[in-house]
């Protein structure tokens, strides 16, 4: 990496080299049978150069020829992409323990054991098809730049997941777990999963209308994609956000607080002491008690908006995901969460006279995201009548505008229902949400 940086600096004013390497192994079962086994070992280099206020970029997987990579980056300067930013100086970053050496001794038999642990839990307790999967791996990254910044990070992960399918469908109730190393899967989460599945077994037709809708963690991205798109510095640069000119104003219910906390070690997928541009991360309050506080930015957006960098430049490809080598840093959240409320899950259900528990969704990506609009299929949605789950809805949709419905927050659960690897989302109960169905 140093030689690559040195080669780039022979022609550029400043330069940055990003390197990442990862290795993951996974095993999947369907209907109790092992169906897929695989390993991915990926690595690559991304180079950014600045010259005369212009930005050049290039990347490669195999660094066979340093001069070719540098040449590609210098050639892209022909595009005359304006760069109002400079690469950061070295800064102190938090020490984080994200790596467990125990993953090095894991193998496919351990993944099979993990799946068996999940399958054993459900054995003889449901007639539904149970699909389980498990994976482990490690990744590392390093950023160096011509200002002397040199940061490295390493992490390990062990995951498990189980889905119980409703009869004759591919729709079901699922649960995911993420740890730094192999651990037993928490039984209380699996019990809750089984309970929701059992209560959702009857298929019901309901009437179209407005009613209470409880978003569960797996459906929450329906709302958070729209919030993220609006609070991103990129949308402010383009002037396409409903939050334009609203920093410091109340935009959502006072029951709603949204933050990003990459320093939370429990966010297995999202914890990081620095972003992909080398800016130290910190807990960032984006919306506090309904008041919009922070525009999150990468270096480029920070310079265009005349803001200080917030440590939110990530190469992950935004809401669609993607290859961190190929994608340039964009404003993004690493470990977002909602502040917990005071209600238990059961009390939230009991408080619903008529409503939907939106477990999962289809089509969250196809609404008018920039305007906050959503219109999603329930996959599945459980119907609640007089405080009791009576079944799952046949062909139901939930629609609305995130900025509208999140002004009607009835209750927030008193703790995250499921960390989901990255997120810390409690269940959120909203009032007066539009529901369409065949009834």
């Amino acid at each position, binding site marked *: 990496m140093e030689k690559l940086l040195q080669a780039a600096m022979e022609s550029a004013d400043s330069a940055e080299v990003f390197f990442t390497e990862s290795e993951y192994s996974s095993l999947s079962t369907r209907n109790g049978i*092992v169906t897929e086994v695989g390993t*991915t070992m990926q690595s690559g280099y991304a180079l950014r150069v600045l010259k005369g206020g212009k930005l050049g970029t290039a990347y490669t997987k195999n660094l066979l020829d340093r001069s070719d990579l540098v040449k590609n980056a210098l050639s892209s300067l022909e595009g005359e992409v304006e760069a109002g930013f400079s690469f950061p100086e070295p800064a102190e970053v938090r020490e984080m323990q994200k790596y467990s050496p125990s993953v090095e001794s894991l193998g496919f038999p351990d993944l099979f054991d993990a799946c068996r642990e999940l399958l054993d839990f459900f054995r003889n307790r449901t007639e539904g098809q149970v699909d389980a999967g498990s994976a482990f791996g490690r990744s590392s990254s390093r950023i160096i730049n011509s200002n002397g910044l040199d940061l490295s990070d390493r992490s390990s992960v062990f995951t498990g997941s189980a889905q119980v399918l409703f009869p004759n469908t591919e729709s079901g109730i699922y649960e995911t777990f993420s740890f730094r190393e192999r651990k037993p899967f928490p039984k209380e989460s699996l019990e809750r999963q089984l309970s929701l599945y059992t209560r959702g077994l009857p298929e019901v037709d309901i009437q179209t209308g407005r009613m209470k809708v409880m978003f569960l963690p797996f459906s929450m991205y329906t709302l958070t994609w729209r919030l993220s798109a609006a609070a991103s510095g990129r949308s402010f640069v*383009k002037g396409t956000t409903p939050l334009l000119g609203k920093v410091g104003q109340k935009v959502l219910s006072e029951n709603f607080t949204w933050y990003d906390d990459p320093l939370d070690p429990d966010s297995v997928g999202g914890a990081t002491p620095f972003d992909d541009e080398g800016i130290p991360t910190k807990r960032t309050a984006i919306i506090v008690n309904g008041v919009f506080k922070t525009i999150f930015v990468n270096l480029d957006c920070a310079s265009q908006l005349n803001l200080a960098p917030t440590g939110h430049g990530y190469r992950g490809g935004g809401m669609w995901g993607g290859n961190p080598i*190929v994608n340039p840093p964009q404003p993004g959240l690493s470990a977002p969460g909602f502040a917990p409320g005071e209600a238990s899950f059961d009390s939230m259900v009991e408080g619903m006279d008529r409503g939907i528990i939106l477990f999962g969704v289809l089509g969250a990506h196809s609404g008018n995201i920039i305007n906050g609009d959503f219109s999603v299929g329930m996959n599945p949605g459980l119907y609640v009548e007089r405080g009791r789950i009576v079944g799952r809805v046949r062909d139901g949709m939930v629609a609305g505008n995130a900025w509208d419905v999140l002004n009607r927050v009835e209750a927030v659960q008193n703790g995250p229902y499921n960390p989901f690897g990255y997120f810390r989302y409690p269940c959120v109960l909203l009032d007066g949400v539009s529901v*369409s169905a065949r009834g």
Partner: protein
Amino acid sequence: MIGVGFREPAGASRLKQRELPMLEKLERFIAGFPADFADIRYEVEKETTIVFSGKDLKEVTASTTDGYVVRVLKGGGFATATVTRPEDVPRALGMALDGAETMVRAGGKKVRLAPVPVVHDTVKLDLKGDPRGKPLTEKIALTRSYNSFLGEQQNIATTTLTYSEVYRDKFYVNSEGTAVNEELLTTSISGEAVARKGDLLQNIRVAVGGADGWNRLAGRESLFVERAKIAGSLLDAEPVRGGTWNVILSPNLAGVFTHEAFGHFSEADIIEDNPSLRARMEIGEELGNSSVSIVADSTLPSQLGYYRYDDEGVAVRRVQLMKAGVLVGRLHSRATAAAFDEPVSGHAVAEDHRYEPIVRMGTIFIEPGRKSFEDLLRDLGNGLYLVDGKGGQTAGENFTFGAQYGFLVENGKLGGMIRDINIMRNLFTTLKSIVGVSDAFQLSERGGCGKGQTNIKSSLGGPHVLVTDMVVGGV
């Protein structure tokens, strides 16, 4: 397990001594490998990306990536490994072997591969204008001009427009003796125009592109103007009222519907391990209305979804999936073809060198019928005309898709414009609800199906179709 290795084959050390043709290099990697079957794919991917955000040019990148994918079958166990560095290929083979053996020990699925002919072939690009030889400045200038056409229209607040050129040189070798080299090139200029009035934002997508080179990208100014005007018109459109509607889908939206509602279910790997769904998708089942015939055809020349061989070295063929409402075919990899005891179809496709192949539908469409669009409007009477896809998603038999815009239809006449349209339904009930098919036919120019991997060659389209009782979620 990290660190599990396979003894480096004799050929591998010789690779370091002299440069061999890539297919020969790959053959040496798997020569003598202790398994029932092994294959290896190497790909070089050269990608040019130019991004405009508003009036600003935000990214220009021209770069190369490459990598290897290996698969091993032993005793019915089947496992894959993907790897970046050539020196790691022997270790990747070792890990795949370990995975396959674990699958056997765990009593896993017994995988068999359907027999296919041994192939030796090289497929070069057949382009109408090769963008690879054009200077970067020409590509930037074309994208900039289209971006300006978008941005100059009334009420357009901003635009995003991306030029994408993806060239893949794929080399595939297996232990049965097949050796195939195929080049693919996918180009597009795509993005969106965002219109604004007060706090209301509306966007419309635009895309030109395909698999046959540069000429298709040039001379498309009028399309960009037209799309921006639609975005502006959406500011005055009414949000659709949620409920159950009879609808006409435009050719593009009919394609999204076909892809999401039926196409994924015709991919054998989706249903292979779900016994109850597999039972409902038996060949010969009458699943659709008699007006519906569906085809997957990646052999159509010059189309986005065109390719000659899949990523198992199997020649792709046209597959009739549904004929007059009856299920008559399915899309397969070699493994699923053996599991279903059905013919291979050449549909095991990977996004790129980072992924193993999975079953993908390629170019899919409903075959045109005999009615005109006006006939369908008349048949509809009152309902909605929905235009152009805005993404879709499927989970088993349930699917959703969004429309970019639409119109109310009253007494067979197009009425006011509507927006915020998403639809959900169940495959088995919907296929019987397609009651009219027009004589029009149009295929998409840009793809992006995200079934685990993003398939930029996913092509879809068809005629206008009339569907009854669709659940529409209004905002």
